């Protein structure tokens, strides 16, 4: 169990691309990883400039996320965590859609109702994101059961961190999926920190993958900064799920190179050498070296890609900033399928105040303070 699956180094030396991947596949993965890095950098800058209220970066975890999500066909449902927007980028969600959500503006899919990074992307089979940790784990097991009930050939994926395994939801989701042999793939991104609490204070277990044994399912620990190893584990897990072999727990061993969120400063709790060590294992740099060796990467391509992504981001930010806030009335929509009488009355009270006393002022507020 202490073994950790790695593929990149061996694959670099091999003559052919591994795992049936085509050159285009590799470039698609790389592009999504790079786009995620640039999206995160832009997001953090926007937050520091006071242009958005909050941001959850995923720097360092791109391989862990893209490697798994690349193994998921687009009609597989995914229950993301709030740090996995890379998957949305991989599935082709436009930057404008994502950035509208960071701004909570009138064209934001979730109508400004959630903090940044809490996307809902139904068109891409990405389920609405919650803040409380782990709630998506049992839900994913339920959706996987629904897929079994309907006799469909699909898998469900859910993402959570090392901290998430301490929640009851992890136990429920793993246990139910195990009993049902449901086609569910549990991706535990072990980035070694639950905000400020290190992994040794999270579990006495030798690994997170080891926890799978108790639920009667395979547990695989992979090098989470090795996108090919992650992809291999995910591909195998999905094949098993589709064949009726039940769920799998994948632990991607990685490191959060940034803060938990824009409200956090890891310098207060993390030994500084840790970041230095892990920067040397950066997942994008490692994959880039592999691609270069395979003649699939050049500095010119990198520059063209970076310029294109940066320009797209800038356009999306401009458009989002020119979009007004959602209309006041929308606050009352979607609580129920149809507006019940008490909400009609409460909405009317707001309209009345605006009619008589003018617009209600936004007095600000910073997260967490």
């Amino acid at each position: 169990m202490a073994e950790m699956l790695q593929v990149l180094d061996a694959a670099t030396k091999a003559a052919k691309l591994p795992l049936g991947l085509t050159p285009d596949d590799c470039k698609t993965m790389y592009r999504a990883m790079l786009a995620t890095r640039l999206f995160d950098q832009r997001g953090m800058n926007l937050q520091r400039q006071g242009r958005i209220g909050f941001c959850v970066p995923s720097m360092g975890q791109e391989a862990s996320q893209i490697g798994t999500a690349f193994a998921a066909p687009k009609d597989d449902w995914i229950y993301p965590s709030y740090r996995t927007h890379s998957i949305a980028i991989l599935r082709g969600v436009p930057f404008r859609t994502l950035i509208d959500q960071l701004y909570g503006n009138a064209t934001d899919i979730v109508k400004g109702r959630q903090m940044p990074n809490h996307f809902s992307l139904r068109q891409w089979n990405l389920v609405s994101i919650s803040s409380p940790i782990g709630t998506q784990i049992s839900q994913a097991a339920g959706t996987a059961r629904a897929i079994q009930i309907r006799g469909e050939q699909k898998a469900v994926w859910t993402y959570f961190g090392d901290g998430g395994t301490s929640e009851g939801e992890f136990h429920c989701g793993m246990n139910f999926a195990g009993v049902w042999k449901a086609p569910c793939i549990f991706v535990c991104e072990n980035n070694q920190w639950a905000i400020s609490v290190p992994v040794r204070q999270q579990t006495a277990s030798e690994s997170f993958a080891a926890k799978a044994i108790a639920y009667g399912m395979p547990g695989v620990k992979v090098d989470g900064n090795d996108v090919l190893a992650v992809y291999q584990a995910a591909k195998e897990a999905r094949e098993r799920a589709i064949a009726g072999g039940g769920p799998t727990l994948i632990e991607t061993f990685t490191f959060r190179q940034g803060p938990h969120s824009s409200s956090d400063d890891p310098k207060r709790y993390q030994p500084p050498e840790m970041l230095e060590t892990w920067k040397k294992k950066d997942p994008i740099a490692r994959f880039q070296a592999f691609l270069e060796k395979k003649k699939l990467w050049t500095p010119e391509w990198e520059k063209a890609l970076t310029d294109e992504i940066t320009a797209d981001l800038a356009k999306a930010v401009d458009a989002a900033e020119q979009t007004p806030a959602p209309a006041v009335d929308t606050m009352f929509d979607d609580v129920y399928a149809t507006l019940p009488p008490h909400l009609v009355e409460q909405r009317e009270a707001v309209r009345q105040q605006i009619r008589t006393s003018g617009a209600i002022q936004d007095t600000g507020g910073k997260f967490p303070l």
Partner: protein
Amino acid sequence: MPEMTLLAAINDALNIAMAKDERVVMLGEDIGKKGGVFGATAGLHEKYGDLRVMDTPLSENGILGTAVGMGLYGLRPVPEIQFLDFIYPGFDQIVSEMAKFRYRSGGEYPCPCVVRSPSGGGIKGGHYHSQSAESYFIHTPGLRVVMPSTPRDAKGMLLASIFQDDPVIFLEPKALYRHAKEEVESGYFEVELGKARLVKAGDAVTLVSWGSMVVTCEQAVAKAAEKGVSVELIDLRSLLPWDTDAVMASVKKTGRLVIAQEAPRTLGFASEIAATAAEKAIDSLRAPIARVSGFDTPFPYTLEHVYKPDAQRILNAIDYVARYD
């Protein structure tokens, strides 16, 4: 029309719903071969099989979390929580997930789900088999909360709940499971959610209640009638959203309001009704509003009969309000 107990009416509704629409699935503890600890799901596992009537691992959190995942995917899950007192490990899945999915996703992810659970006392079940926990859920935007008190309402409201798109906390007054009996139409019908039921018309005092307390209220109303006090009894049956119009119309007519609930007093739903009457019908009120309720103590075992409002306690409140001048 066949005569049915409230329990049989629920079983009938579940059977009709499952036969009508294969998206309807049930999950819970002991709901399969055993048919539920009260028998509400009797015969359904045999008829619809393992995939649609699921005995789950023993975890309310797991039952509710997986039910959410089924509802989001387009099924119509009807999870059973064996006793309402056991629901709290799954509270987060109800109030932060099931209730909020539609809203927080901008309408992209509705989460239809009908959580059935036996509620209230009257079976000598002590603190952990007797609670009336409706207020926790009524305080939650995004949920519908209903509690029928007659077999016909139980059947019609359960069918209406399963075939609409909002999550519902469907509370079954377990004290009435086998005691409430009446003729109920066969086949599919719905009783509209959000509408109160006029149990008995009257003109001197409005009495509002729900769940098994309605039956106790009927006894109190009969005794009041003997004394010449005409009480209008309203069974609220939908607690969120609730039928404000029906209650306020009655209060405006009688000018006197008593609310009877089994739940603890502080922040019980009676308080909301009283506040609404104070806001909307103050000019009509000719007496203080009276709340009759359980006490702000845990639900006791031996002294259950003292804790639960009885007909005499309700009658005393009616007398006080009726005589107030």
